[in-house]
């Protein structure tokens, strides 16, 4: 069951070097809490990769390790290496990475509360050196993606609703015109329509501008629909990986992540009490 050796990722694009490769990293928080126990993954240039897994599996930690944000949370990568676009991430500061085109949308709606929605979006363009008009144009594009933000553009972000904040941080990341976006739970707290909108944006940017994506997402259905490749993380280890549609048709994934064991979806009201956690590790 366990697909342990991360072979060359089988996406049919060019055999060029992957834009991101994570090699067997280990992450420790607070000097004692071991969270990632050897995670390896690759994102091909221009690919969309989904990172799936239960709560606490280590998805966020993996993403933070990639964008080098662990330091500030008293975590460190104790083993392994991460290469983004050919450079060792560990030697770069987070802002260097953004400048090189790798931006993260953090989980938990981390908008800047005292700035207005528009100011929030503009901070996303901090690293850009191009003209004001190009930035203004992108701003309009974000507003076109999220009409709700247009209504609230001059509100203090701290007072906007949860979903509005989420749109705000996604829009903020788009403002930096990245080569690669690490999306951490983009669909959290968004209305169904907007969720679809987000994934459409992902597809759009990927197709039109060749932006690569690494998606940590709980909405497995959606994620596997749009991704080319998927990794399943459990308890700090990659327990399975493969092409998205292969995963989507895998029986276990179907049962545990998609909720379609057998033919029909079970009603949430009729769930019975049973445990099945950590089945791949037993």
């Amino acid at each position, binding site marked *: 069951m366990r697909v342990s050796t991360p072979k060359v990722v089988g996406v049919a694009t060019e055999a060029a070097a992957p834009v991101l490769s994570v090699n067997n990293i280990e992450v420790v928080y607070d000097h004692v809490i071991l969270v990632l126990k050897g995670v390896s993954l690759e994102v091909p240039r221009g690919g969309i990769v989904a990172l799936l897994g239960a709560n606490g599996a280590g998805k966020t930690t993996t993403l933070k390790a990639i*964008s080098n944000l662990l330091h*500030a949370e008293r975590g460190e990568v104790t083993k392994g290496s991460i290469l983004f676009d050919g450079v060792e991430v560990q030697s770069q*500061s987070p802002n260097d990475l953004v400048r090189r085109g790798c931006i993260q949308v953090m989980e938990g709606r981390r908008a800047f509360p005292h700035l207005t929605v528009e100011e929030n979006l503009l901070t996303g363009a901090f690293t850009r050196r191009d003209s004001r008009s190009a930035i203004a144009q992108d701003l309009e594009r974000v507003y076109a993606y999220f009409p709700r933000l247009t209504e609230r553009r001059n509100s203090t972000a701290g007072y906007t609703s949860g979903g509005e904040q989420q749109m705000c941080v996604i829009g903020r990341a788009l403002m930096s015109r990245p080569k690669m976006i690490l999306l951490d739970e983009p669909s959290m707290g968004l209305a169904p329509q907007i969720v679809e909108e987000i994934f459409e944006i992902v597809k759009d940017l990927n197709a039109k501008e060749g932006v690569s994506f690494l998606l940590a997402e709980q909405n497995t259905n959606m994620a596997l629909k749009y991704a080319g490749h998927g990794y399943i993380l459990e308890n700090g280890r990659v327990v399975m990986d493969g092409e998205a549609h292969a995963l989507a048709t895998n029986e276990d994934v179907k049962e545990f992540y998609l909720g379609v064991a057998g033919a029909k979806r079970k009603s949430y009201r009729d769930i019975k009490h049973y445990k099945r956690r950590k089945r791949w590790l037993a």
Partner: protein
Amino acid sequence: MGQFLEVLIGGLMSGVLYSLVALGFVLIFKASGVFNFAQGAMVLLAGLALVRALDLLVANGFPLWAAIVLGIGFSAVIMATTAWLIERFVIGPLVNQDGLTLFMSTIGVTFVIEGAAEMIFGSDVYPLRLFPTDAWFVLEGLFPGGILVNKLDVWGALIAGILVAGLALFFQRTKTGRALRAVADDHLAAHSVGIPISWIWFVVWLAAGLVALVAATVWGTKLGVQFSITFLALKALPVLIIGGLTSIPGAIAGGLIVGAGEKIAEVYLGPSIGGGIEYWFAYVLALAVLLVRPQGLFGERIIERV
């Protein structure tokens, strides 16, 4: 009437002198959420560096104007070095910690600066005379004896005004200003959108250092450059919170309120209850203002949401 005006004007002016110190606090708080207790020590350091360099240069036969230019340059370099050291070794590694920890670390920094500054530059009183210290007596026609206005205070107020205008523009109108406010809100999120926090912090601490240098020229002229200058930090605090920790114009407004309030209280209320009340009066005033507006007069609203 004459006396009242005089006390009022004197109070307003000396309040503005405190604003000069408070400004440094605001700068750093606005840009990193750090409540910088070391601002007083930085004024001392800047002052000592300046006055010692001046003495040395004058003693070596430089003309006064050249000595002043070189001295200010030297002391600016010292402040830049300090800013760099602080960012590199203290505040940088403490990114994403809560405000209290950062506040405490700046008290640590205060100790280091006080020790180092006195060790390097000496612990005597060093007179500094960059501004006139005598007084004008205005409106002598209207009031017997006229109304006393200290020239130094006027200079201080002028300088503070210019600084405030400049800094306020910088914060509100520029991209960097926006980034600074973002950093103060959320270090980690600022990291994640690619704001170079280290560089930004270096710049702000440098700016605060230069503001400290300016404050040192005025206060050094007033008191002589000496250890007691570090106590200015405590006098600047009520100014700061009345104006609001995040507001640059607020620093001036706070200064005016505190200055006028405490001087009037001391002169008119003090004698009847024993005098020496201005130290706490400023704080009680601040407390009263906060009860009405918990974020100070011009501070950003404190966001409370669930």
